[in-house]
């Protein structure tokens, strides 16, 4: 970090600087950056502080920033479908992210390690498919699920399993390239050595490669979890009965109908919905930032 080691750490930054250099110089070099930083932080965090305070507000008012604190909104959640929705969202998001990681990693392994006919075509096709977001086809997905539901009700409309399957359909297109690049950075000599020692391809994959690519698996799993957790349009068209809704669909229902009456409930629900994602995100921040920029460098 910075230079001033002699001064007690508790002293404020400004004082430290003034001891070393003139305030004017400090401000033009570094101080203004703090001003910008504070403004940016207020801009970023202010709505979230408001959300938190609204959730703790006794009457769940839209207008009052600070009122009598109570946890009434949180306890009122248990009288609604909120926890069912939360459970649905978590089940769907976890199943989708696990499936995405497993299938994406397997495909990336094959593309990275094997030379087979159709490999170039496959990679090019994936690159093209990437450009066509699945959610644009929600009408066709809806119609497909109607037909599937006539045959296998578990895969029809209003089924969580069907929704997971739909999400898994997007697994390969979005993530294989990110993983493919990472798999290529693992030296091939490692698998060759294992092969010579008598390991089968499955052993190489499960016990050697997957361990080495763990960071990218974490990134892909997390990104998939977050995007599934927040997905709305397909979930809204597929899940029809209230008991099957995800959080995104359910909370939208609360806010779109009777805003004022439901605001406290919504705020409390939103805080709870945000916590798992926020915690995961901050915990794995480094990986995510690494993953984002890795994607950028490789294009």
């Amino acid at each position, binding site marked *: 970090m*910075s230079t001033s080691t002699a001064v007690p750490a508790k002293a404020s*930054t400004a004082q430290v600087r003034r001891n070393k250099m003139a305030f004017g110089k400090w401000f033009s070099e570094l101080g203004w*950056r*703090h001003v*910008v930083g504070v403004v940016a932080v207020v*801009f*970023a*965090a202010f*709505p979230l502080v408001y*959300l938190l305070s609204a959730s703790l507000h006794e009457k769940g008012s*839209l*207008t009052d*920033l600070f009122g009598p604190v109570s946890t009434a909104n949180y306890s009122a959640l248990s009288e609604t479908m909120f926890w069912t929705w939360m459970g649905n969202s978590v089940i769907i998001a976890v199943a989708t992210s696990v499936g995405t990681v497993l299938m994406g990693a397997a495909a990336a392994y*094959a*593309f990275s390690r094997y030379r*087979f006919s159709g490999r170039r075509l*496959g990679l090019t096709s994936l690159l093209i*498919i990437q*450009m*066509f977001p699945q*959610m*644009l*086809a*929600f*009408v*066709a997905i*809806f119609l*497909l699920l109607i037909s*599937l539901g006539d*045959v296998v009700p578990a895969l029809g409309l209003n089924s969580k399993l069907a929704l997971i399957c739909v999400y*898994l*359909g*997007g*697994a*390969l297109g979005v993530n294989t390239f990110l993983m493919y690049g990472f798999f290529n950075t693992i030296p091939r000599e490692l698998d060759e050595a294992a*092969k*010579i020692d*008598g390991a*089968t*391809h499955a052993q190489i994959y*499960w016990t050697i490669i997957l361990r080495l690519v763990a960071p990218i698996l974490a990134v892909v799993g997390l990104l998939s979890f*977050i995007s599934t957790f*927040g997905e*709305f*349009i397909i979930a*809204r068209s597929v899940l029809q009965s209230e008991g099957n809704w995800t*959080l*995104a669909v359910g909370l*939208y229902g609360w*806010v779109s109908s009777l*805003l*004022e009456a439901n*605001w406290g409930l919504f705020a409390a629900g939103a805080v709870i919905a945000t916590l798992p*994602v926020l915690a995961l*995100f*901050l915990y794995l921040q480094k990986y995510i*930032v690494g993953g*984002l920029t890795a994607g*950028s*460098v490789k294009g």
Partner: protein
Amino acid sequence: MPTVKSPHADQGAPPRTPDLEPVGRADHSHARTMRPGFLAKLVLMAVVDAIGVYCLLAAWNADAWGIFAAMLVLLVAANWVYFTRRALALKYILPGLAFLLVFQIFVVVYTGFVAFTNYGDGHNGTKQQAVDALLVQDEKRVEGSPSYPLTVVSQDGTLGFAVIDPDGKTLVGTAEDPLTPDDATVESDRITAVDGWTVLSRQDILAQQKAITALRVPISDEAADGSIRTQDARVGYVFKSTLTYDAAAGTMTDTESGAVYAPNDHGEFEAPDGTTLPIGWRVTVGFENFTTAFSDSRYAKPFFSILVWTFAFAILSVLTTFLLGLFLAMVFNDTRMRGRKVYRMLMILPYAIPGFVAALLWSGMFNRRFGLINNLFFGGAEIPWLTDPWLAKFSVLFVNLWLGFPYMFLICTGALQSLPSDVLEAAKIDGASKLRTWRSVIMPLLLVSTAPLLISSFAFNFNNFTLIYMLTGGGPQFEDASVPLGHTDILISMVYSISGIDGSAPKNYGLASALSIVIFVIVGGISALAFRQTRKLEEIN
């Protein structure tokens, strides 16, 4: 996870490379060496096959031949891939590929197919289904038909009628199952009990009055025979449609007016005077959906203004978030600054919360009367943030800036930190000013590494349905209220409104799919062009 060891390794067998060995060396065949991995494969495949066979049978029973064929192909492919030694790569690709084929590639192709049909309300099924539905509609009591003493019964919550026909036979049926003879106890010309059915009491009948008067029990499988309906839950009459279907000629005749309706190109029955019957069937209509979007007076005007706004929204979103993110990245890219980590963590909060929470939160904050923004910052002025056409556009962009700048900040920081220091040093030695270094060295390098992400961001915002739908719902509405579209609608939310999936508007899957195809083409085309361009940029550098 325990390492799966080859039994041969334990026995001190010489190192082998099983996958390179010629097929046919018996002692290395998978089937002979019962490794745990192989057992796991067997179990998994058994499960997959069991599910597959179940689906095959179900598809067979439901006469769903398309699904049957697809399932069969997938099942055979899976078994071949996992039990042959030749398709090694496919063993790893197949699971993802299967889902990709069905739920991504097929649905995109199917979207293309639906775009050329008139699938939607009034055109939901086959011609036969349309005929049956028409015969059921507009039923009238047959003049002079006999009355049926009737009792309302129920079975597992399904309502039905038990009636005595003019011959004195007792019959029972529901809306789904036509009347069939059934043993019943008859007392003074009324049925008082039926085996397996519960006779509804007076209270039950009152409680379900609406359902009972709406209930129609077909007399036979033939829709033309009419059905039994009742007004008072005591006497039923035969109701028949005024329409009759001539199967040979394929025409509908209205027995009252005598008008003959013949099928036309649009999957409707049409009379010579141009009137059509309300229920039609699904036919392909060529490019009609596309021409409707571009030239029909109801759709063309909103379509073009929505198209323009979609581009403006996507481009401005990328631009504003990128500029703010870049600016902040520059500000914080000074290693002497203290507390950078704390600033950074607090600043990326908007990016770390689910998008729908953010959009809903802002929609509350921008509320005209009760919202925080108006009450706290504007002293209770009722500024119509989300209901004025221009302010709503501004609000959408503002919220998207809030949502998106942390992402841009993160990638710009990453890109700035990975700039090669030798180039910067060289610029310094050559005496380039700070501004010059930025303009000629840093920005070009930065753009090369962030350009692909900017394109993805553009494509994402082009289809940022969640934000628009949750923040403004596309509103405020266009002045012409014949279509459910508004000033902040982007193409994808337009598709959603027109498709009518949420039940707020008549369903029009055909037109919605056609618009989806338009979006596919725009997004795909722009991405392809842009990626090509960035490839070139990279090569130059």
